[in-house]
């Protein structure tokens, strides 16, 4: 059906899917603002910007692999492990080397660990050809185990003030720093996905693995790097979240796995692979963040909030099934 409507560019049914999510987000904000004016107070808007920026990174990490018809169940464990290790590096280097070098080393270690964890997933998925679901299920429990083991299960306190300031509280032109970083990364990802060979290969891979092979690209390398990218994005999320909580937490990312997939899919990435643009994690992160902040302001019972998210998840997936039925 979508194909027939494409010939008339101003047909409402052709542009409706693109307007649906922004309208839904605005609708959610207006709905909660009507119930509780605090929803659009300055402080809360900054809060929404920060939270959705943090959430954007895990959703984007998920998007990169969902495009290839994969999954990354280990993003949450990745976030936890990065949080723990970078905090430990910072607190141990702080007395000897000063704040700047300590924070810099912590951030670099975090990113390197994210890349390494992504590389482990990538090797197993791309070179050992194991189902991504099973691979990341297993690495999820391995990474979580390592995070709780090296931290002893306790949060790591006494992070330098400068770290929290630089990655969470600082504002540039009135915009919070997580939003700036998210914007820059989103732009970079957008260019990578649409303007580079690597990006195109990822979409082809998701559409049909065989076509990608026949096309003569070194498919395994591209698939491998998709998981590395995903790992780095999750590491950025881990660093920013650590800066926000102010301590290294071994269970920081536990709840992120399912909601990151939810955000990417609600935003328009298909689990059948081959589709999904950078707008998917942006819209998805904004929608879920606005919903949960709104429900918090409305003091809806904490156990009922996942029920709402779950219902939206199924709704988003149903929408996806409807969209792709023609293909």
């Amino acid at each position, binding site marked *: 059906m979508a194909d027939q409507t494409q010939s008339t560019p101003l047909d409402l049914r052709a542009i409706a899917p693109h307007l649906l999510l922004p309208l839904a987000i605005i609708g959610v904000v207006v709905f909660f603002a009507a119930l509780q004016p605090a929803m659009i107070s300055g402080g809360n808007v900054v809060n929404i910007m920060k939270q959705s920026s943090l959430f954007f990174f895990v959703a984007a990490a998920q998007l990169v692999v969902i495009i290839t018809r994969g*999954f990354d169940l280990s993003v949450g464990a990745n976030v936890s492990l990065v949080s723990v290790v970078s905090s430990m590096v910072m607190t141990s280097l702080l007395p000897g080397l000063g704040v700047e070098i300590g924070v810099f080393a912590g951030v670099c270690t975090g990113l390197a660990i994210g890349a390494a964890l992504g590389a482990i997933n990538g090797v*197993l998925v791309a070179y*050992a*050809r*194991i*189902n991504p*679901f*099973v*691979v990341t*299920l*297993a*690495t*999820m*429990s*391995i990474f*979580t*185990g*390592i995070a*709780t*083991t090296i931290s002893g*299960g306790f949060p790591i306190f006494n992070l330098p003030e400068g770290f929290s300031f630089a990655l969470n509280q600082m504002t540039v032109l009135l915009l919070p720093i997580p939003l700036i970083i998210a914007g820059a990364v989103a732009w970079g990802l957008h260019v990578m996905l649409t303007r580079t060979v690597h990006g195109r290969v990822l979409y082809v891979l998701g559409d049909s693995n065989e076509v990608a092979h026949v096309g003569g690209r070194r498919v395994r390398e591209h698939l491998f790097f998709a998981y590395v990218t995903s790992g780095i994005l999750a590491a950025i999320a881990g660093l920013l979240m650590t800066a926000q909580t102010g301590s290294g937490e071994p269970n920081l990312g536990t709840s992120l796995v*399912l909601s990151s*997939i*939810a955000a990417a*899919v609600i935003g328009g990435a298909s*689990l*059948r692979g081959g589709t999904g643009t950078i707008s998917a994690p942006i819209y998805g992160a904004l929608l879920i963040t606005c919903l949960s902040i709104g429900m918090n302001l409305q003091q809806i*019972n*904490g*156990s*009922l*909030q*996942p*029920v709402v*998210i*779950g*219902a939206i*998840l*199924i709704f*988003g*997936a*149903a929408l*996806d*099934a409807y969209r792709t*039925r023609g293909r």
Partner: protein
Amino acid sequence: MPAQTIQNTARRNRIMASIGILPVVLIVTCGLLALYEPRFLRSSNLINVLRNASFLSIISAGQMLVIIVGGFDISVGAIVALTSVSSALSIVWLADLGIESVAMIVALGCLLGLVPGILVGLANGFFVSVMKISPFMVTIGTMTIAAGIAGYVTGGTPIYDLPDLFTREIGRGSLFRLPYVVYAAAVVLGLLWYMQTQTRLGRYFYAVGGNEKAARLSGLNTRKYIWAAYVLSALLAGIVGLFLTARVGSGEATLGSNLMLESISVAVIGGVALKGGVGRIPMVALSALFLSVLSNGMSLIRIDSKYHIIIIGIVIVIAVAAESYRESRRAGHG
């Protein structure tokens, strides 16, 4: 007689291929454990292992059915929690109604307790088979919904005051020294084995998972079988929920939180192919036994529980890597 030798080797290879290395690994693990830690062989410990393996194999059998028809059931753990809460609530409610016979209360309460779980299974089946939504998304959604409802209803506090008949008899009772859940597992596995190997229904499940389109074109109502697999999986998860509730003695919204991962791990280690159409009950039972022996052994030799998930994760990777290596070799030769 070289021809016959070749035939014999071929037959042996075929038998080896169909059994796989899991039984060998299981026996070696048990042997090493028995040598290293004699407490492993104590009958109380072996019964403990068998009990855990029974819980695990019932829920994994359901997971296997769903994977055979080409799906996933992420919601099994949440169904265990939901059933725990709903059965405890209905037993307490029935007791308040003033029904005389305790046996009646327990029986009715268990039956009522299974209802919410089966509803979740029906919803899973509907969304997957009729609406054609990715099973992963559907069951993640129903998982969060079921877990949320279970948490909301209990408000975070367990439901106590369950009758002794339920907690002592079903939870801790035994026949010939074996807990009841072992017999339940034997019955469930036996029935499923019979269904899979001896009935047409069982073959239809494989047909749907192996090639849904071909199955549909040859006249099977594929929706029906996919739906049935999700309902059966939910029912088995519910049964595990009942036994676990009786075992811990209260209705808890956090029960079974790691059973989802464990059931998928058991299925994967037991050689159930995630692309559907492959999977056998005996292997799943062996695999459940193997995981139970492994975690029991790790506790016995005092490996910190934090390492358990690391080791189990590594075991999964090795199992699946071995499987895909075997498959690629088979594809290469054939």
